[in-house]
């Protein structure tokens, strides 16, 4: 558990304690509300998680890396951004992977495109995002994030 996760837990528990001391009824209601929220989202979250598991098996990150490493920069960038879109890889796997790529001489542009879309754009989270925020919000946020991921990558290519 990283320090931020821990901090959120500690903060939440302290908040809960203070809340309970000040108003038991309200706190109970909040807990019920939290439980309800969890219940409403759990099916969607599990779908996301198992979809990621499936995608990682079909498209292992190492294979993505070798695929991206062997193409022209432009093609590699678009491919990397697309791969990043369909997968959600934890940072502790993504960074060493991209690090090896860059050290092996692959251009930073596809590497950065991959890193950014990995976390910011999520094909698997779209159904849940759509349910919570509506179609228009989801489509616009994800397409803008995708576009800007490529822009960031290209600018990085010029600067480094």
């Amino acid at each position, binding site marked *: 558990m990283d320090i931020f996760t821990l901090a959120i837990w500690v903060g939440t528990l302290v908040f*809960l304690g203070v809340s309970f001391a000040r108003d038991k009824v*309200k706190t109970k209601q909040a807990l*019920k509300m939290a439980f309800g929220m969890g*219940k409403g989202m759990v099916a969607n979250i599990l779908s996301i998680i198992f979809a990621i598991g499936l995608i990682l098996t079909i498209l292992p990150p190492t294979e993505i890396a070798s695929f991206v490493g062997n193409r022209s920069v432009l093609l590699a960038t678009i491919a990397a951004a697309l791969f990043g879109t369909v997968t959600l890889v*934890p940072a502790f796997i993504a960074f060493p992977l991209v690090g090896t790529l860059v050290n092996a001489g692959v251009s930073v542009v596809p590497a950065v495109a991959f890193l950014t879309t990995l976390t*910011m754009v999520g094909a698997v989270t779209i159904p849940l995002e759509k349910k919570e*925020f509506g179609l228009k919000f989801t489509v616009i946020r994800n397409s803008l994030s995708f576009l800007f991921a490529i822009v960031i990558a290209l600018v990085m290519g010029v600067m480094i």
Partner: protein
Amino acid sequence: MTILKKIKENLFLLIVVLGYVIMFLARPAMGIESVKNSGYYIKEMLMIMPAIFVLTALLDMWVPKEKIMHYLGKDAKAKGVFLSFVVGSISAGPIYAAFPMCVMLHKKGASIRNIVIILSSWAVIKVPMLINEAKFLGPKFMVIRWGLTITAIVIFSWISAKIIKDEDLPGEALAQPGPHVNRDACMGCTLCVKNYPALFEMQGKKAAIKTQEQIILNMEILQNTIEACPVHAIEYHEE
């Protein structure tokens, strides 16, 4: 009709299940590996989501709407943008962990722009992630990418807010005067029926306003019930 609707609502879940069935039939070994791969993400979810849900509910209960509006609303300007970045980057967990929090904030008056900033920075600008990035790709790489990402988020959150209106998000549609249950949002937790049995009832698996009898509304109970609804499906419009 209802079955069709159920399928439509859970289409993604069905596709995933189908994917696993096919995988297990065609390549059992890869099917097992997929389940194993999912294991890490389940742990990641369990580690953060309970805290996020409780925290969101507590903030919802205790922080008044005016405060959220003041700090994260449309008129918060640069202060709102800055605060949204702070909220997003001190967060933990995957991007979907930001969803319940952002829905709650938007309901309480946070602007679309700030919601987009929180979601995006929640995804990319985490401090533990930055340390990792500096370790594997060098501090220069990390600093430049970090700067560019923040700039990009500032720009595209502004564009998003130009295109997306508050009404585009679910649960904003105006209805006739009086209390109203948004049945698309309701997930049947029965909390409102328990809180205010005189007004609410369950019709099938969703809550509804009792129509048979006209009662004099107790605004205090109604307000509490509205605030308690986990999905904010209850609204009250004045005449």
